[in-house]
């Protein structure tokens, strides 16, 4: 285990910000802490970095208990959301800062800085000052400064949130490649699910100070553990249903449609539940099929997909996503459509 967080807790007076958080990272793994603002993800990262005192629990880095070790002895590389480059130092001196604190002297110092400069494609910018760099360049200097000290772990706090969308993708990919090449164990904090899904090996979805689910992007999207995750990650429709037989995994939606949900255990027979369906797991069937009857309200064309908003007879709104190529064959607004849920991709949640 490279990083082990055990029962990590932080409270300010009576307010608990992080509660009993457990998380372990293998060497070279990248885990994203994903969640809405105020979920405790940044506090968790700051506890690992040593900027926030731990109320209870333990932090181990490479087997060493660092719970009460000051941050300057922890050996964490940090990339800040606003980059926190030293404005009075050149790019070279910014990157050399950590090396100088470790008493690395030229020529080794120069060599290591030059190497990381070229790795981050910052050649020729060594003598510039942070204010003379673009946002993307500043971000790369921030990463270079954290990497050059060969940290035990790399911590990133919303590292891409100040970049524009196009740069975000390429920088994220680049960072991922470097992190893999160096075998760096890494935690990064984000509120952007596509960022988390695109970069991390595993995602810890946090809510109200706890990890609600830890898993791969596929797991949290297709098999969300809680209703919060189902609605926070991607889009979700919730349709009321009743358990008919928990032994045979059969539920009944309104209108007599029965579904067999093979993927998960169900509560006792007769329990009212909500069935979650992703928009792309609803297909438009023929009128004579047994499906969810809904009125098509409108269609928005998104390019690769077309998004349909429909309302059911019980008054619920449904979001359906179909391939963009099927746009010409879609029924017109106001007509009744027949929706067929994919039972394998449907999840049940108790009310």
């Amino acid at each position, binding site marked *: 285990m490279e990083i082990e967080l055990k029962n990590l807790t932080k409270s300010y007076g009576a307010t608990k910000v992080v509660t009993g958080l457990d998380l372990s990272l293998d060497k070279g793994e990248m885990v994203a802490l994903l969640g809405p603002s105020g979920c405790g993800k940044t506090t968790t990262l700051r506890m690992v970095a040593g900027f926030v005192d731990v109320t209870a629990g333990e932090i181990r880095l490479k087997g060493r208990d660092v719970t009460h070790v000051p941050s*300057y002895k922890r050996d964490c*590389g940090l990339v800040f959301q606003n980059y926190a480059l*030293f404005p*009075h130092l050149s790019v070279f001196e910014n990157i050399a800062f950590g090396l100088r604190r470790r008493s690395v002297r030229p020529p080794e110092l120069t060599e290591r800085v030059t190497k990381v400069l070229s790795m981050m494609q910052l050649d020729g910018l060594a003598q510039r*000052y942070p204010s003379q760099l673009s946002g993307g360049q500043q971000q790369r200097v921030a990463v270079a400064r954290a990497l050059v*000290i060969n940290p035990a772990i790399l911590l990133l706090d919303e590292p891409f949130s100040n970049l524009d969308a196009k740069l975000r993708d390429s920088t994220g990919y680049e960072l991922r490649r470097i992190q893999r090449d160096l075998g760096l164990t890494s935690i990064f904090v984000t509120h952007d699910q596509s960022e988390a899904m695109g970069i991390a090996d595993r995602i810890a979805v946090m809510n109200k100070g706890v990890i609600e689910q830890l898993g791969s992007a596929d797991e949290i999207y297709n098999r969300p553990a809680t209703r919060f995750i189902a609605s926070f990650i991607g889009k979700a429709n919730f349709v009321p249903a009743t358990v008919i037989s928990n032994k045979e995994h059969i539920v009944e939606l309104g209108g007599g449609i029965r579904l067999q949900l093979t993927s998960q255990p169900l509560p006792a027979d007769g329990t009212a539940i909500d069935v979650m369906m992703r928009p792309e797991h609803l297909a438009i069937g023929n009128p004579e099929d047994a499906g969810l009857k809904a009125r098509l309200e409108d269609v928005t064309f998104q390019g690769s997909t077309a998004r349909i908003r429909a309302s059911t007879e019980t008054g619920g709104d449904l979001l359906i996503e179909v391939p963009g190529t099927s746009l010409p064959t879609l029924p017109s607004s106001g007509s009744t459509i027949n929706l067929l849920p994919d039972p394998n991709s449907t999840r049940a949640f108790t009310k």
Partner: protein
Amino acid sequence: MTFRLLSPLGLSLLILASLAMIYLLVPIAVVVVSPFGDTGFIAFPPQGLTLKWYAAALNDGRYLTGFLLSLRLASIVALISASLGMCAAYAITRYDFPGAKALEALFLSPLILPTLVMAVALTAYFTRSGLPTGTWRLVAAQSIICIPYVIRIVLPLLQRFDRSLEEAALSLGATPIRSFFLVLVPVIRPALIAGAAMAFITSFDEVVLALFLSVPGQTTLPVMIYSSVQLGFEPVVAAVAGLLVCLTGVVMVIMHFFGLRTRG
């Protein structure tokens, strides 16, 4: 907003600004120019042309000694005020202690206590306390009035200082003390210099405390000028003042070029 210079508004603004500048600068010009006059009293415009008053000012050892003493005093006061003021401002912004808000308000409000009152109080205090005499008494007294200037200039910058810079330094292995000197101090250096300069000028110019607390035989330049004026306004005194004006001008020019070079 731009004004066309020859429009009625632009013209009246130009005249107004010129009058204000004349009002502010003419007294200074008078001080510099009048010692060139060949009369035994201050006359403006000067009558005749002589350099003897300026020569006398330069040759009078008392003025030079006073000047050097004031310079030394102001430098020490500036250094002490900048250090202590910086520490106080840091404590107010970083630590949550009872009375922090009150202290901040106290330092940021204009100094209410007249210097004269403080001079009397300090004289009484120093005499009773039996503390050793010496110029340090004046240094301590002037520092009291100079520290608030430093705090007033440094505090807003410290409040706006990005704490993540210090955290970055810590994460890179700098101890808190090192990150203070390697990151915080350099970043707020302009405010520190400005504060120290304010303290320097205040001390260099200060008469009341110096009058009460200076050691016999150790007279600062302002006190020297003050006493000379009381005895009779000789052109030598004006020449000393004129020399100070010129020196200030030279320093300003040097600082201007120095400022241009260090920027960017």
